[in-house]
């Protein structure tokens, strides 16, 4: 995706290496904190005072469970057999990582993440463009309409999609029987392929508005002068898109992709409601749920959760370090 950056940045004021939070236009690039000016230092201090309490609270409510889960994951511990708790070191991790179930669930999760995020990005961008270009009087209604699916609770939307496709109560088979492969007897939730299709469709329908909203914010940041100048130079719509608008929106796009990828990777509700992991649709969150909540195997379940957490960290690392997602940049550095 880095190839989308043009050789010469279209926006000369953009500096991808700038320190997040240091938004002063004239601050040169500096790696060491020693050389910050008084003003920058005062700004940083204020930043800590403002964000510090929230940071501490977050640390308490997220770090504590993470640490506890990591600790529990080193034990063989079943909630209904409290006396048989036994320290087994990394034994749980060995069981999980040598089990084909973990790898097939990881594969399913990655598949869902990649497909849903890719489709959502395309659809979301189209919707963002529609919202951006819509005439003023129409804009409010349009945005509300597009955002409705996002406002629906996932469990509710999962049930709605489930009942629509269910072989007993659904209408989809009836409505779309003219399509090849769909007939009255198609049981969507009985095979991996069709079941994942419904799960992903529901996921895409529900979260595309989120991506389109983030992209709309990015679109609004692209200065009109740039596309006007390109237009004057004779650039076609596609060229304006590719050379001017998208490169200038890169930060917003990457933030949208990162947020959605993290969300999609932790998918639970849709799968839980529609198939409960049956017939090859199990995802990692459901695997963790099955061990900790259904089996009450706290040790094994915690180990799955810790591994899931590590996967999420890896996604963040890839996005931030390799694709250089600038989390502060989407707010606009202009």
């Amino acid at each position: 995706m880095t190839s989308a950056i043009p050789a010469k940045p279209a926006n000369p004021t953009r500096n991808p290496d700038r320190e997040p939070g240091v938004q002063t236009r004239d601050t040169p690039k500096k790696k060491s904190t020693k050389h910050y000016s008084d003003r920058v230092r005062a700004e940083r201090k204020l930043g800590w005072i403002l964000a510090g309490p929230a940071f501490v609270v977050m640390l308490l409510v997220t770090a504590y469970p993470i640490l506890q889960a990591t600790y529990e994951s080193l034990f063989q511990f079943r909630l209904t057999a409290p006396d048989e708790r036994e320290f087994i070191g990394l034994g749980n991790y060995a069981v999980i990582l040598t089990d084909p179930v973990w790898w097939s669930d990881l594969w399913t999760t990655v598949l869902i993440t990649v497909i849903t995020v890719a489709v959502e990005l395309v659809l979301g961008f189209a919707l963002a463009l529609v919202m951006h270009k819509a005439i003023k009087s129409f804009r409010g209604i349009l945005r509300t309409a597009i955002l409705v699916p996002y406002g629906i609770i996932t469990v509710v939307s999962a049930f709605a999609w489930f009942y629509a496709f269910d072989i007993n109560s659904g209408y989809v088979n009836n409505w779309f029987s003219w399509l090849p492969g769909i007939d009255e007897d198609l049981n969507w939730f009985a095979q991996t392929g069709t079941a994942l299709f419904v799960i992903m469709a529901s996921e895409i329908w529900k979260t595309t508005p989120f991506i389109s909203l983030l992209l709309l914010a990015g679109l609004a940041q692209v200065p009109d002068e740039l596309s006007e100048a390109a237009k004057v130079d004779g650039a076609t719509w596609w060229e304006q898109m590719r050379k001017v608008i998208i490169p200038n929106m890169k930060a917003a796009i990457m933030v949208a992709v990162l947020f959605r990828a993290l969300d999609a990777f932790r998918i639970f509700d849709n799968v839980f409601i529609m198939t409960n992991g049956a017939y090859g649709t199990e995802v990692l969150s459901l695997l963790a749920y099955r061990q900790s909540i259904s089996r009450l195997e706290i040790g094994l379940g915690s180990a799955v959760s810790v591994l899931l957490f590590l996967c999420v960290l890896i996604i963040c690392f890839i996005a931030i370090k390799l694709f250089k997602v600038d989390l502060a940049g989407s707010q606009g550095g202009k």
Partner: protein
Amino acid sequence: MPISRTERKTRRRPRAAGIGSVLVGILLVSGCGPAESDNTLTWYINPDDGGQAAIAERCTQESGGAYSIETSLLPSDAASQREQLARRLAAGDSSLDIMSLDPPFIPELAEPGFLAPVPDDVAERTTENVVEGALAGATWKDELVTVPFWANTQILWYRESVAEAAGLDMTQPVTWDQIIEAAASQEKTLGVQGAQAESMTVWINALIESAGGSIVTDPEATADEIELGLVSEAGTEAARIISTIGEEGLGGPGLATQDENNSMIGFQGDSGSFMVNYPFVWPATNAAVDAGTLDAALIDDIGWAIFPQVTEGEESAPPLGGIDLGVGAESDNPALAYEAIECIVSVENQAEYFITNGNPPSNTEAYEDPRIEETFPMAETIRESLEQSAPRPQTPFYNEVSTGLQQTWAPPASVDPETTPETSSEFITAVLRGEQLL
């Protein structure tokens, strides 16, 4: 809490009392009720048609102030009910005075001592005339750990027109092979539960038990020593029946996701022939006819018989379900809870519960209530079925066994009598030994 005291004072005036009680009701529902006095018992109930709440109210009144029972609703499916209760019990929640428990999960809760012991005199009084299967379900390691309340069982429902056309004599017990053949020859579908869910375990267990085997041969063993009886003649027979129905498409296109409710809907339709299902089918079908969604002629076409045999001439072992009542070990007042339980499971309450909610009594004496025969013409078959029934494996590792079975035996079309019992057995054993994930 101060709020509740003010509410109580307002009861002097009738109108204010009305408003007051509504407010108290709202507060109770929202979980901020008055501070519980010493004789308030909380009964965690599974969702029903309001029958348990009615019994709670009746017993509260009959106790003359000795105790008052409040009900608290559990999630709708048995697995989630277990999850909630097990976590609360493990955390030492003292509000678990009375719990409606699904029998397969009782050993898991009894083994670590999460249940308060049943006093001998209560055990004696509440087990009189109780069907054997229900008693077995309420017991762990030869000791009664819960009190049998109601007992569920599956019977064979059939469409008389189809049975007649196929030339089956339904006055005698039929076999699975016979109904498979009849459904195939009449081009109808069989009502069975092929979804990857608890209903699959219920089916497998009934088939294996009917063939004279058992899923778990030594239920009291520890996790790493447990022996499964799947690789056996009975296991192969069960797999053969399930795979035949799956492969020949006799369960209809929805078989792989079919639960009890879905099979009932299929049975009520044009392709219905034979179905194994619980007694709820009867009130549900009658209600649909009354509401005008089903043809009234359907009712006259429905017949019932005992669960089909696996081996001709050998009595079948129908599924057993139902609810037993347990008392949490940390309850503040176990003696009072057992006193209330005795009232709840009284013969009259069990009969009333059957008539109003369709849940069959575990006490055979309750079937003598003349109203039962009127509402449930198949009551005698149900009672007979209960006496023949076999519980699901009574082991503390039931959840692993059941989920393992579901993951390896569904969908029915993928079952292979040659390999499935063995794969399934190896998988469950590996999970129990902690070598594999579930």
